[in-house]
């Protein structure tokens, strides 16, 4: 669907709630240069959400939605967890799957979209918590990667089951004591980024969401590589401030502390050889576009 098709009927425009009018008039659908800098300037694709005040997940949602390269032709697949409270407020097609099933749903969806729209890129992006990705849905996650399904998997890693009260998850760090895991985790945090690489993902990143420009870059890279080459995986630290005993204002600092070079969310990236070639191609095109724009601007001002 192009932006041209997203029009409100003229006779009923005035009765539409303001956010829908804004989405049509001021959203960045169809804008290839869209990114995190549109936040505050254009209508965001997320309306008010029902997450806790100061939740880093809400920041992550805003950056991701601002950075999707092709939101009008993207379908997101969610799963049970805090993210499922947000999807109803998101202006991108989305499907809620059974807990853990998200990568299986996304596989079928991507294949169907490819058959139905052979001439148009349709992106599928899975967005689920660590419980859905690594514990309950690990089978579906891995099998999708083994099969080289062409979609992006994003894991919001808050290192426990947050909205059910703080149970231990596979991505919880060793020794951590949570409200519902009083003896402390006895084994190491599952190394899913490494597993993703070994399972055939062409682009893997492990980081926090403290830097919007970084999130824009990795989202765009992950979606473009998934579209052209094969599966990609992003593991983003979105700490649950309630479950780790922090206040609303402390989420950002928690992420900054956790991304220091020796910490568990120090930036880690893996790019396969074919993916490197694609990124180089895209970078060259972008350089060309910027040079052309500069030339045009110089022509206008001369």
């Amino acid at each position, binding site marked *: 669907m192009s932006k041209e*098709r*997203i*029009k*409100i*009927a*003229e*006779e*009923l425009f005035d*009765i*539409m*709630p303001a956010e*829908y009018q804004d989405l049509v008039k001021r959203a960045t659908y169809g804008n290839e240069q869209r990114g995190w800098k549109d936040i505050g300037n254009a209508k965001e694709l997320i309306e008010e959400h*029902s997450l806790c005040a100061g939740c880093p997940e809400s920041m992550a949602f805003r950056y991701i939605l601002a950075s999707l390269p092709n939101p009008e032709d993207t379908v997101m697949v969610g799963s049970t967890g805090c993210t499922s*409270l947000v999807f*109803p*407020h998101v202006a991108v097609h989305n499907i809620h799957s059974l807990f853990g099933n998200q990568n299986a749903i996304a596989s079928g969806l991507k294949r169907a979209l490819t058959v139905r729209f052979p001439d148009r890129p349709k992106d599928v992006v899975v967005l689920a918590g660590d419980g859905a990705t690594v514990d309950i849905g690990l089978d579906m996650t891995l099998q999708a990667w083994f099969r080289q399904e062409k979609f992006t998997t994003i894991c919001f890693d808050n290192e426990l089951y947050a909205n059910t009260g703080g149970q231990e998850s596979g991505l919880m760090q060793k020794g951590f004591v949570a409200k519902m895991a009083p003896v402390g985790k006895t084994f190491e945090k599952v190394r899913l980024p490494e597993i993703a690489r070994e399972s055939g993902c062409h682009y893997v990143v492990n980081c926090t969401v403290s830097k919007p420009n970084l999130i824009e870059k990795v989202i765009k890279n992950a979606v473009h590589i998934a579209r052209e080459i094969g599966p990609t995986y992003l593991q983003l630290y979105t700490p649950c401030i309630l479950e780790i005993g922090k206040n609303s204002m402390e989420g950002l600092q928690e992420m900054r502390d956790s991304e220091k070079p020796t910490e568990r969310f120090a930036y880690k990236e893996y790019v396969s050889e074919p993916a490197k070639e694609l990124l180089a191609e895209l970078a060259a095109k972008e350089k060309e576009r910027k040079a052309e724009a500069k030339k045009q601007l110089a022509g206008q001002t001369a």
Partner: protein
Amino acid sequence: MTTSYKVMPGPEHFLPPSAASMGIRLPDPGQAHIHGTIVSEEEAMEQAARQFLSAKVPTIFPGPLVLWAWNDKAAKKAKAIRYLYETIKESVDSSQHAMLIPMPDYRPKYPKINPEIEINPNHPNLTIWHNKIDACMFVGVHCHQANLSLKIIRGGTNCYTIAMCAQAGHEDAMLSFRDATAEKILRLADWVKKLKGSVAPPA
């Protein structure tokens, strides 16, 4: 199958049975139903017009199929709906308050919606209660979402529901048309005009 069940304004109870399960059947082309009884389309037009004219807050709920200009047909229907709304507004007296409230999409908007400006199929009763709507018409709402809304409304409110359905109609509405077109909506507006002044406003 014959049934004594009637699809009447509620509140019926928390989980009303689906009218289909109670033996209510859908009309054939050219027909409509009133309270589950199959009638001619003209009879239903007259009854729907009377409901609008005798309600305190007659309301039209246009859904995504007509709110968004998907194609020329949708745009034409939107125009007809506006005309019907304006006709109702002109035809009721000052004690009545005609409304046109959109159902822009079906997302379960939690934790809240603004019932003054929209209706959501997952909790339509909030909009009905807030605005004290006593007669409404659904148009341009996908059937499965309309069924959900109509049942919730019948279960928890006393609102009279009319469905202007583009497919086969709705058993769960108190009055349902089928095969809706822009022309059919304009015909309903003509009936409202025709009956203007002859229907007693609400006490």
